[in-house]
């Protein structure tokens, strides 16, 4: 960018990247002097970077956990945190599958051999999958069948390639792949709301622009774009 430009470094969960690219285009149209620079990675990685003093202005996380840690450590600009999107957990099956489970309960059936989920230790989607299965009383029964993916994309890949019989991923992830079929959504109340928080990072030199960026995302226009990619509105 040229010298007069205001640069904004936005660390965002990689699952947001498609939507955020479009938001960037819109935002920069409205703010001609600004230049959004994205850093897409897993939320945990982004958190670690911010903790170690990476020059980040805005952090958009795929899970509250990482944001909570940063908030505790006082790395957020107080009052800047907001929830900007929500997501759903869905059960997916390979596109050409015949014996696939039609709902969560059918996961216990013997013909379902493998279920791909995010690693609950690392991947937020995995934590929600665990919540859903626990709530439905299936967690212990399907333990043996679980394949812990290291990110949602990997779980998706297993289902796409039919290496597993089903997978539990975010609704938005299921949307981006044409070779998987959504079999069922998680029953309402079977997991905590899946909330995407965003906040300005302390020490940002562009705090004002950062706030403006967050406002834009929370605005109708921003929300519209997010919804196009399958996200639910931030505050229900």
């Amino acid at each position: 960018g040229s010298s007069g430009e205001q640069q904004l470094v936005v660390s965002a969960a990689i699952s947001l990247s498609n939507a955020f690219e479009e938001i960037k285009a819109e935002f920069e149209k409205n703010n001609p002097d600004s230049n959004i620079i994205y850093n897409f990675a897993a939320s945990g990685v982004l958190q670690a970077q911010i903790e170690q003093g990476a020059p980040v202005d805005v952090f958009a996380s795929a899970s509250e956990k990482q944001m909570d840690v940063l908030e505790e450590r006082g790395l957020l600009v107080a009052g800047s945190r907001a929830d900007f999107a929500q997501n759903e957990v869905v059960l997916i099956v390979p596109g050409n599958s015949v014996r696939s489970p039609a709902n969560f309960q059918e996961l216990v059936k013997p013909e379902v051999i493998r279920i791909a989920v995010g690693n609950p230790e690392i991947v937020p989607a995995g934590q929600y999958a665990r919540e859903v299965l626990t709530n439905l009383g299936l967690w212990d029964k399907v333990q043996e069948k679980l394949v812990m993916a290291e990110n949602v994309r990997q779980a998706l890949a297993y289902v796409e390639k039919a290496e597993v019989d089903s997978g539990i991923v975010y609704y938005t992830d299921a949307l981006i792949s044409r070779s998987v079929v959504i079999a069922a959504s998680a029953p309402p109340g079977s997991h905590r709301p899946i909330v995407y928080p965003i906040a300005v990072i302390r020490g940002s030199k562009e705090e004002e622009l950062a706030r403006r960026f967050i406002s834009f995302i929370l605005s109708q226009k921003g929300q519209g774009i997010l919804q196009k990619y399958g996200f639910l509105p931030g505050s229900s």
Partner: protein
Amino acid sequence: MILQPLYLSLKVATASTLAVFVVGLILAIVLAKKHFPGKNVVETLVTLPLVLPPTVVGYYLLFVVGGHGLLGPLLAATQIQIIFTWVAAAIASAVVSLPLMVRTSKVAIESVDPSLEKAARTLGSPEWRVLLDVTLPLSRRGILAGVVLAFARGLGEFGATLMVAGNIPGRTQTMPLAIYSAVQTNKMGEANLLVLIMTVVSFIVLWMVNRWQREWWFRKAI
């Protein structure tokens, strides 16, 4: 909790190193000794897994060893499942550490004084004997370096492994995965402990190799 991934890691690395040793050495020998059209291409292809990010290598491996991949029908027919087993982890490790073995051994083999190989031939040894008796023993430093690198790489392999082996606790969760998990979940205490264990284990292995190399195998010979 900690012993399980460690054991698995050592198992995977050992199996992978054995495979790499055999395949890599054969490749190195062929590349060092034979001249054939497209040799350069083969050499470059062998090095490729080093250039691609392991996750990508893993992604492509899925196409090969997956139940619905290239080898799918064969695997189905033989009732062998590779994906999501430690064998897959070993294969992934092997693929990414192969270039280390091949390149290092090739140089060592090429550096053997040809007049010694000639001498062995005049003493009645056919090519394969010359190889076993002279070329390989005299390249043993380089080959050993290749093996060490391959073993270390196998021990640390993570990206490709994850892809084809899955992360099935107690079954395919190797040390690197455990460390990664710990780091990701910000359990730095646990991560540090695991890294320490990994360091100590690698240290012991490498130290033994070094010692063995210095004291026994290379004791007197140049």
